[in-house]
């Protein structure tokens, strides 16, 4: 199926949209619903496109950040004089150069550009050396003398919660960032009514985004013409949230926002890792101010791991009760998240984990206790499927176990717990469109579930799981009544449409979606539309690309802006055509009276214009202009008609109104903003996407290795505005989920990340990538643009439990800890067979560490490692530092 759709995409591309206009597309749309190439595809595939690190300015310097070697230490003294004097170094920036705190959440302003008095994880930012080259900056970095007083550190969240002294942040007792305790319905009564109750602990280990493009920021000040001091600041950055960046820069640099311009060049993937202000973005700006020159900082891959903001290690104690008929009576979850050293999005993450227990199935009683805990590790934040993924793994696994207990098919137990929308869930989430039943039905059908489940050869199995996600948060991080998205449209005299949107294209197709929605609404061809995005000086405010909000919110704003401008065109055109504006139809570059059938000759004329316009040569274009002009002249003479071309209508409108612009904005409706309980603002969304997946796996019972053969993934995206893009997002989600399920894990030892690189942090390679059959389900949301909802996050969460359930089907072991590495699978297999237990924590060498992967473990940092072993003297006298200018 995938291949077939790709072919359609290719062939329609090859035909350049001209012939396809003759074929009426589904549902009466001419642009949306068609597989459409990304508007930036050519730039990216030819290498011509510019990412932040490709940019440079005259006189630009590079910055390198000195990171803490200790997980928890007080900074007693920083002496940068040796580094400052090093030939080629322009400035050394330290914490006191920009001491204002910031953080993505208003409740979590606990970060500084560079450490002021304390470092809180190995990799925390201590100083930044600005120099003329990478090599010089790296060398000079070794000459910054920092004196630390090492403090006890906390690596395990459950241990950290007991801390009374040496707190990570002084204002957070017990190292507890935030805890929430919710009860909806009557959980005790619910469990009493259940026929089967299961309780278990699930652990999902820490994963990170691993986007292709490492973070990069270029900052440059203009000289203020009046004072001669640094004036306006321009920042180019790989970010998902240009407006938040502008806001935080203004806080830290103490500059008004209007003096700061943030531009987002091409971004090579975000997945949440760029959805907040990352230290280098602030540091680059502070450094540029101090060095009085443009400064670029690009993270190494190791620094990307330290900047992190990924999915926290999560401990889930889950209890679920069901009746014999399969209906869920109650759920109780206690969730502890190992949040790392700073708040980041943590408060939101822990709330999503609870809130998204609802809105997938009909659960009458929910009890939730969530703890976001600080530890001495890099800060966790938002990552694709923010907050829902790990809890969903636990829930769907347990639901599978319960189905087995009551002797019900795993697909059927899910069908027995469906919501009846439109409805408001027990925890206050409003659900309108709900494609889950169809998702389950389709995956079951396509995978041959009923015929094949339980009948596969030994070691091979099928598993099913479901998931859902928000289409944007109904409440923005910064509480205000401001619309979440605003879009402006300007149309030129020759019918060129320019859309200005603050939405950030990060590879997900945001610009293409914007162009499609504008073109569909205006009834013009896609080639007329140019999207200018994410430049705070040019584009109206949009809160950014995260929580899968862009299609729903920026899409709706684009739709409204296009309708606004269309109204003006219609008014002018109606006048010319002697009819009411409401009687006009905009479609395929024509404006015609409702019900009038455009005769073939008109079509041909229009076609002719189009063909000439499509000619690439300059002369061709000029001819086209002349032709259009004469055509317009001729038509003017002919008097009112049944139809006009889009350009004629635009010219008429500009003649009539002057400049032709329109604007539209979107704010989620009040009814969708959730319950009144504490923390009730997180979880509500104007619409939810739904997913059901079936995974087919095989397990090697001697080695514990798991192979995923195929995944059938159905996703309810409301309406697929661009089907290839939707399929790409589904396949990508499944693949990323498979990484977390099988191979990806951040491994810690005494606060040191053991695998800070793409060699040891194992994202799946093409060899492991299974066939994914994406199945698009369209539930047509009443509030989405053309009925569309999100499609890029909701599918991920289902993949992990689908694989876990398939492993259970294949070999009968239930895995409670992700990723399902061969050693974990084998240990479970051995335990089941009562065979010799495979001890996973002990090496064979008697002198080896007592515990491998003391991930968290109970050990506090007692100065083992770094302290016992001071900087090697040999290193200090190495040629690198001997060459220093002191």
């Amino acid at each position, binding site marked *: 199926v995938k291949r077939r759709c790709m072919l359609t995409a290719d062939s329609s591309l090859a035909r350049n949209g001209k012939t396809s206009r003759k074929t009426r597309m589904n549902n009466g749309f001419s642009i949306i619903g068609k597989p459409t190439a990304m508007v930036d595809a050519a730039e990216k595939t030819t290498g011509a496109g510019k990412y932040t690190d490709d940019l440079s300015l005259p006189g630009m310097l590079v910055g390198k950040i000195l*990171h*803490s*070697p*200790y997980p928890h230490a007080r900074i007693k003294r920083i002496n940068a004089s040796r580094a400052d004097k090093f030939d080629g170094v322009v400035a050394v920036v330290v914490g006191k150069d920009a001491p204002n705190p910031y953080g993505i959440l208003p409740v979590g302003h606990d970060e500084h550009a560079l450490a002021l008095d304390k470092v809180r994880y*190995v990799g925390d930012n201590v100083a930044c050396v600005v120099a003329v*080259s*990478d*090599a010089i900056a*790296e060398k000079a970095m*070794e000459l910054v003398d920092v004196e630390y007083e090492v403090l006890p550190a906390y690596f395990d969240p459950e241990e950290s919660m007991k801390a009374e002294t040496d707190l990570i942040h002084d204002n957070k007792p017990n190292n507890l960032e935030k805890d929430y305790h919710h009860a909806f319905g009557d959980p005790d009564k619910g469990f009493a009514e259940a026929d089967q109750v299961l309780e278990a602990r699930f652990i999902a280990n820490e994963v990170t985004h691993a986007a292709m493009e490492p973070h990069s920021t270029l900052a440059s000040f203009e000289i203020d013409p009046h004072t001669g001091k640094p004036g306006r600041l321009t920042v180019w950055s790989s970010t998902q949230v240009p407006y938040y960046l502008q806001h935080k820069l203004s806080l830290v640099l103490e500059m008004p926002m209007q003096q700061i311009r943030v531009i987002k060049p091409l971004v090579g993937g975000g997945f949440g890792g760029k959805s907040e202000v990352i230290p280098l973005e602030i540091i680059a700006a502070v450094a540029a101010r101090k060095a009085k020159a443009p400064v670029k900082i690009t993270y*190494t891959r*190791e620094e990307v791991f330290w900047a992190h903001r990924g999915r926290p290690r999560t401990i889930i104690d889950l209890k679920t009760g069901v009746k014999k008929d399969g209906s869920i009576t109650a759920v109780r979850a206690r969730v502890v998240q190992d949040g790392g050293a700073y708040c980041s999005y943590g408060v939101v993450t822990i709330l999503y984990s609870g809130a998204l227990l609802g809105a997938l199935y009909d659960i009458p009683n929910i009890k939730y206790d969530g703890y976001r805990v600080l530890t001495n590790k890099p800060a966790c934040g938002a990552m694709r499927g923010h907050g829902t993924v790990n809890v969903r793994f636990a829930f769907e696994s347990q639901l599978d176990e319960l189905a087995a207990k009551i002797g019900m098919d795993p697909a059927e137990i899910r069908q027995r717990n469906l919501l009846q929308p439109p409805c408001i869930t027990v925890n206050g989430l409003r659900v309108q469109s709900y494609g889950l039943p169809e998702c389950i039905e389709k995956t079951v059908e396509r995978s041959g579930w009923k015929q094949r489940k339980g009948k596969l050869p030994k070691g091979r199995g099928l598993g099913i799981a479901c998931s859902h996600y928000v289409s944007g948060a109904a409440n923005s991080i910064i509480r205000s009544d401001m619309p979440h998205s605003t879009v402006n449209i300007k149309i030129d005299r020759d019918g060129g449409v320019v859309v200005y949107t603050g939405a950030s294209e990060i590879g997900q197709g945001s610009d293409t979606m914007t162009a499609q929605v504008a073109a569909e609404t205006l009834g013009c061809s896609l080639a007329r539309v140019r999207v200018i995005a994410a430049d705070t000086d040019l584009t109206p405010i949009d809160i950014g690309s995260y929580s899968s909000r862009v299609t729903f919110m920026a899409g709706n704003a684009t739709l409204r802006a296009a309708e606004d401008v269309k109204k003006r065109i219609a008014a002018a055109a109606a006048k010319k055509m002697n009819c009411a504006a409401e009687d006009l139809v905009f479609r395929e570059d024509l404006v015609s009276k409702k019900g009038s059938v455009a005769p073939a000759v008109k079509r041909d004329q229009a076609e002719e214009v189009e063909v000439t316009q499509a000619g690439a040569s300059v002369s061709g274009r000029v001819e086209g202009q002349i032709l259009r002009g004469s055509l317009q002249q001729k038509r003017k003479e002919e008097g009112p008609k049944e139809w006009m071309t889009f350009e004629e209508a635009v010219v008429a409108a500009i003649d009539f109104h002057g400049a032709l612009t329109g604007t539209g904005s979107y704010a989620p409706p009040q009814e969708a903003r959730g319950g009144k309980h504490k923390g009730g603002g997180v979880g509500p969304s104007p619409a939810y996407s739904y997913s059901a997946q079936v995974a087919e796996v095989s397990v090697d019972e*001697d*080695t514990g290795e798991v192979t995923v053969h195929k995944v059938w993934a159905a996703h309810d995206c409301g309406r697929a505005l661009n089907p290839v893009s939707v399929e790409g997002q589904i396949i990508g989600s499944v693949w990323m989920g498979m990484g977390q399920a099988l*191979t990806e894990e951040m*491994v810690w030892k005494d606060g*040191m990340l*053991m*695998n*800070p690189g793409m*060699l*040891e942090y*194992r994202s*799946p*390679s*093409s*060899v*492991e990538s299974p066939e994914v059959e994406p199945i698009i389900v369209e539930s047509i949301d009443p509030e989405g643009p053309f009925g569309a909802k999100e499609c890029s996050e909701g599918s991920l969460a289902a993949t992990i439990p689908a694989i876990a359930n398939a492993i259970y089907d294949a070999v009968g072991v239930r895995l409670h800890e992700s990723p399902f*590495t*061969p*050693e974990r699978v*084998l240990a479970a297999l051995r335990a089941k067979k009562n065979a010799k237990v*495979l*001890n*996973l*924590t*002990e*090496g*064979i*060498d008697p*002198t*080896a*560490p007592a515990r*491998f*992967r003391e991930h968290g473990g109970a050990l506090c940092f007692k100065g083992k*490692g*770094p*302290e*016992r*072993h*001071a*900087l*090697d003297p*040999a*290193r200090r006298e*190495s*040629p*690198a530092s001997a060459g220093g200018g002191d």
Partner: protein
Amino acid sequence: LSLPQFKLLRPRTLAEAVDFLAKHSAGVGASDSSAQSSANIRIIAGGTDLIPSMRQKLFEPDYVLDLRSIAEMRGIKPQPGGGVEIGALTTLSTIEKSQFLRQHYSVLTEAAATVASPVLRNMGTIGGNICLDTRCLWYNQSLTWRKGCGFCIKKDGDLCHVAPGGAKCWAAFSGDTPPALLCLKAEIEIAGPSEVRRIALNDFYTGLGDDYRKLQPNELVTRVFLPAASADYRGVYRKLRVRGSIDYPLAGVAVVIKRSNGHVGDARVAITAVNPAPLLVKGASEMLAGKAVDDALAEAISDLAARTAKPLTTSALTPEYRREMIRVFTKRTVLAAAGN
């Protein structure tokens, strides 16, 4: 991470290369690890091992000797009297695709085909794979990272994080082709300023993680010889890794078997990635000789292999698991090589 500054030397002949080495290598004659790591000159062939290490500042040589223009060190040359000579600069993809090697020394082509990923095999050479630096999670890290852990015996420090309290370095040898070459009784030619010597590959490795090979800073490996007597064995190489591509072996087993009259005439088993050196499994040949391979025999061999292996926490997956996998993979490899 930037590359440290160095001068690139590009000899056109082997003699010129040896001269450069003699001129620029410091600490000649010293064999302790500190002298080796601070050696003034490093040799580059494919660069797949050296370049990342230089970025991590594991090596900061003043000179880098680029061998790639030395034509005489390249190519697979079957010898008139049987056997084959393989130039050290022959790429792994050339070996993987060689019809001659596939026909007569299949264990080597199989091992070469599993190294890293296709693009890396296009660059990486057989000489480089033999000389591959030993690896450890506490060693193959950036300078900043290693500062955080307090350095280690292998580089800049005096502590082993894998076996604290010990003075020995346990970094694991993680090449794929050497166990195959050991099974084939390969010899290597080493050129130095005073002599060209030829030694059995089995004598090349020291078994130490830091000073892992017997090669002076002024010497280089030039050729690999596979004897005629090793030709036409059935050979199989299997490796444990998390991903089907890119990954270094976490445990690897090579087996060659020559059958006579339905029984094992001659056989050898070697393992890699679970010790500081690739090792022939002692006693395996004797145990296999003259017998018909069945499950029980394969299991007995796998026990031997597991006893030879000494995996530690130098890489991903737990040592106990990797030891268990040496057992599983040896059994499977022996059975596959026996044609069962």
